[in-house]
């Protein structure tokens, strides 16, 4: 059985020699007509989404990204053997090549917007009347709209592409991802600071640069 981390260009980006895959496995590269994939071999493997294991996956993807464009695979990608991986590269060749072009020279940045605590007690259905609860929910929706309008929209203008998550995990009122030119990360960050200073009732965190997880498939980018 094999576990696959990411798709890149040949020669399969060589991760640093000390870097290992899940369970300490050796990292290998498979090349196939203009595409490559980084994977490891396992006798048996049932990766659970424990933070420690997910971080191993992430480190491998970041190592590939350090030497060229990468399409990160979803954590937990197992295949029976190398031939199956090669077949996937063949079957989805055009789509994968287009995606590699789209992310070339670009990185993903993340935005999370939180309400300032004092102005935004979390809705607590148990401790309130129904009316209070609904009012709190309406206020939350209002802040989400504000965040989208005042923070997300101007930041999206600096990005090649962006996605807003449908239902951000509370207490965030907005989470979004941006595909940004690698040399414009500082501009993006400065703009986010500037917008944040102008809207004090919303606090935002910009994170990254990340591998382009949110822009590796066509429907999301």
């Amino acid at each position, binding site marked *: 059985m094999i576990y696959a981390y990411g*798709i890149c260009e040949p020669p399969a980006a060589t991760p640093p020699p000390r870097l290992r895959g899940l369970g300490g496995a050796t990292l290998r590269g498979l090349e196939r007509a203009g595409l490559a994939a980084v994977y490891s071999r396992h006798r048996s493997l049932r990766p659970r989404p424990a*933070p420690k294991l997910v971080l191993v996956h*992430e480190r491998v993807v970041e190592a590939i990204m350090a030497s060229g464009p990468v399409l990160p695979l*979803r954590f937990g990608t197992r*295949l029976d053997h190398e031939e199956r991986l090669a077949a996937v590269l063949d079957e989805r060749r055009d789509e994968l090549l287009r995606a590699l072009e789209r992310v070339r020279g670009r990185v993903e940045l993340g935005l999370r917007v939180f309400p300032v605590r004092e102005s935004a007690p979390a809705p607590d259905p148990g401790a309130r009347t129904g009316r209070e609860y609904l009012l709190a929910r309406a206020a939350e929706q209002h802040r989400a709209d504000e965040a989208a309008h005042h923070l997300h929209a101007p930041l999206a203008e600096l990005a090649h592409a962006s996605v807003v998550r449908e239902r951000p995990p509370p*207490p965030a009122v907005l989470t979004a991802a941006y595909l940004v030119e690698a040399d414009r990360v500082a501009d993006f960050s400065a703009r986010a600071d500037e917008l944040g200073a102008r809207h004090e009732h919303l606090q935002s965190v910009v994170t990254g640069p990340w591998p382009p997880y949110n822009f590796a498939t066509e429907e999301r980018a």
Partner: protein
Amino acid sequence: MGTEEHVQLASGREVALVEVLDRALGAGVVITGDVTLSLADVDLVYLSLRLVVGSVPTLFPAAADAS
């Protein structure tokens, strides 16, 4: 209150962990039907992280004071 502990523990590293999990578990290319996670597994991870994320605004007391 139980969340106070998380408020104290919040750090940039924890924020980064949430961001990594969000991406690696919820995005990225799916090339096989055999992605081995059940939704229940993912939900558990998110549940344990929600408290950490909830404390993020306390990382920026200066901004909160200013308002």
